[in-house]
């Protein structure tokens, strides 16, 4: 009997593409306008096993890896960035610490429900005084006899108000700076936990971002995720993956902007011919296509390096920087190709333009990324 088998990566891409075309794109405008997070779609993704793509079947995952995870996120971002961003976070930052360092009991109470879409996780890094500068994190974790007491605040927290549990970067010893950092697991129902109202933002309108506050939150010692003082290392184990996931989201958005542009410039007739026959429009399409192809190659390369556990933070930073800038330019050009219609809320290109701004900050600002990339060559 000969061995004939399907390519799972291609099948996952195709399945996600169909899901996005049938379920997400028809509702995207309505969801964006309502500002409500689409829990029904999120649950459907969970039922398909998308949330567990990176995790082994032993913890309720789908037994995939970063390559398959990023393929799925690319497609999802083509449909609706808020849904893609929240899903991507649930798959990675919100659950990875819990998966690696959580106890069996924590897995049962939080990880399995999270992968089934029944509980939502959030990841808390940024503070008013600490974004790229993590050494300045002020949220404190004070050791007690049986655990820790958390005090402080976080901001720009995706799913802050909606999350059921949080992975929070805290300072255990201000004297140690970066070496005192540690991640803690804090369920929302911990006494002393509260949040601000949802931020009003330009893009990803149906994501919920807010400030969250910890006021004497007592947590047991097993909620410390990893070895004390190694918080930065914990972050570094997934930083490349966070960046390449962000790049994958950018690729999806770029593709959406390009698909809409191609469709429009074939249909829109001016001076007796479709505007796609004009060389200046062709130049825009060519640039979009070349950048997309280049970005796709970077993402495909880095996801494989991450999967194979090769060091690739610099490559991931480059990919994130390049793809997000390309997507910015693509969504801008898409609006120009659409002319005044691009300015109308009736067309999706304006949403791509707004949503892409979100990617500029998540996973590292480009100003910082450019510096760290340059440092690799100037050291």
């Amino acid at each position, binding site marked *: 009997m000969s061995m004939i088998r399907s390519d799972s990566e291609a099948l996952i891409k195709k399945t996600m593409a169909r899901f996005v075309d049938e379920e997400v794109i028809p509702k995207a405008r309505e969801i964006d306008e309502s500002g409500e997070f689409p829990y029904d779609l999120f649950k459907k993704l969970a039922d398909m096993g998308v949330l567990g793509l990176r995790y082994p079947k032993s913890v309720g995952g789908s037994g995939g890896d970063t390559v398959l995870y990023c393929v799925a996120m690319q497609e999802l971002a083509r449909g609706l960035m808020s849904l893609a961003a929240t899903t991507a976070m649930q798959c990675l930052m919100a659950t990875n610490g819990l998966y690696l360092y959580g106890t069996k009991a924590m897995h049962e109470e939080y990880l399995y429900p999270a992968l089934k879409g029944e509980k939502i996780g959030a990841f808390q890094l940024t503070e008013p005084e600490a974004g790229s500068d993590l050494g300045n994190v002020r949220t404190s974790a004070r050791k007690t006899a049986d655990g820790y007491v958390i005090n402080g605040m976080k901001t720009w927290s995706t799913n802050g108000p909606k999350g059921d549990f949080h992975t929070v970067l805290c300072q255990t010893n201000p004297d140690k700076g970066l070496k005192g950092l540690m991640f803690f697991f804090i369920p929302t129902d911990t006494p002393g936990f509260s949040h601000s109202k949802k931020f009003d933002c330009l893009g990803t309108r149906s994501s919920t971002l807010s400030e969250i506050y910890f006021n004497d939150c007592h947590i047991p010692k097993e909620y410390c995720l990893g070895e004390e003082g190694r918080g930065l290392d914990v972050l570094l184990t997934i930083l490349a993956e966070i960046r390449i996931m962000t790049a994958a989201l950018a690729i999806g958005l770029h593709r959406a902007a390009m698909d809409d542009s191609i*469709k429009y410039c074939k*249909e*829109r*007739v001016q001076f007796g011919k479709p505007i796609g026959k004009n060389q200046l429009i062709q130049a825009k399409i060519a640039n979009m296509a070349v950048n997309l192809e280049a970005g796709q190659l970077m993402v495909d390369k880095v996801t494989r390096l991450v999967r194979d556990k090769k060091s690739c933070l610099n490559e991931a930073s480059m990919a994130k920087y390049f793809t997000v800038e390309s997507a910015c330019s693509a969504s801008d050009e898409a609006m120009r190709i659409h002319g005044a*219609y691009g300015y109308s809320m*009736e*067309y999706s290109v304006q949403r791509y333009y707004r949503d892409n701004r979100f990617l500029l900050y998540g996973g590292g600002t480009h100003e910082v990324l450019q510096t760290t990339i340059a440092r690799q060559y100037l050291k």
Partner: protein
Amino acid sequence: MGVWIDSELCNGCKRCLKACPYDAVAMRGDKAVILEHCTACGACIEACRQDAVKTDVVAREIPDFSDHRGVWVLAEAQGGELNPVSLELLGEAQELARTLGQKVGVILPGWDIAGLAPTLARFGAAKICLAEDKALATYRVEIYTEIVAELVAEYKPDILLIGATSRGRELAPRLARRLKAGLTADCTMLEIDPDEKILLQTRPAFGGNVMATIASRYSRPQMATVRPGVMQPCECEGSQAEIINHLVKVPETPAVAAAKVLEVVREAKRKVRLNEAKVIVAGGRGTGGEMGFKLIEKLAEGFGGEVAGTRIAVEEGWVPVERQVGQTGQAVRPELYIACGISGAVQHRAGMQDSRYIIAINKDPGAPIFSVADWGIVGDLHQIIPEMLTQMAL
């Protein structure tokens, strides 16, 4: 086993490319080559004038079918009433029979059907075989297969036409398998090949993107189903028909015993989704509002189709949003799209220009909708639609 091209002999004329029904010939440089998905059908062999297409496929022998004669129609009746498609098929059968110099026959299974024979005769049947039995009052494919197969074996028709109704489409394939006969579904054109005297059956494939002509050379009867409304009935004055009453014996095969109809429910017209509609009548700004859309609804009803609107019509509240056609609505590709009072901005055209036929009715002769229409009428839809309704006797 297969087909290949002798590149020494090939002169690059591309006749084989055009002849291939499967798109399985390509040019490599100035020579033709046969591609992997070739089915060895041999169309290219006949087309090549250089004798460059070679094959090791042994030509299949065509058996002698001279004992099969007559163009027969399997008629359909329910509750003592003929399905109109049966008379349409008789009209086509007359044409085919004339070309072949053969006679038209009808098989009609059912209950309470004796009174239908004169109608069948008037519409062209020369031989009418009635299989009347109470057991056939309620249609079941397993019983009908047994009865009709028995009659076909007895009368040995050359051609057997069946209406592509929901019942015909279920019965025909089962019957064909029983008769070991080739069958072509949903034909839109039937003709007799002048040389071979066989039935050429043309039907749409690939969602209507391609027409395919099909022949059944190796079996009889040559069976085809035809959609209702495609053929024309043709009344013949004073024709006489031989009526045969067939004694029905319902055989007790396991399949016959296994199926039971519990309930038959007739329904009023069901809600059809826009992208499945065969005919769409759409209105735009030029309809002027609800009065105009009343006309559009009537016309749609007359065609058994659906109503749609442009973005403007939706925003004005003349049609619900689920009926919006265009870039920000739905893309549709019905058999017929009638655009009334629609100027045809690209945003609308993008959603309907793949329709098979397009009719445009608009006051402005310069409206872009006319550029995508098959037929256009420059005029006021408030005059034209009522006239259409009158002429369609609605």
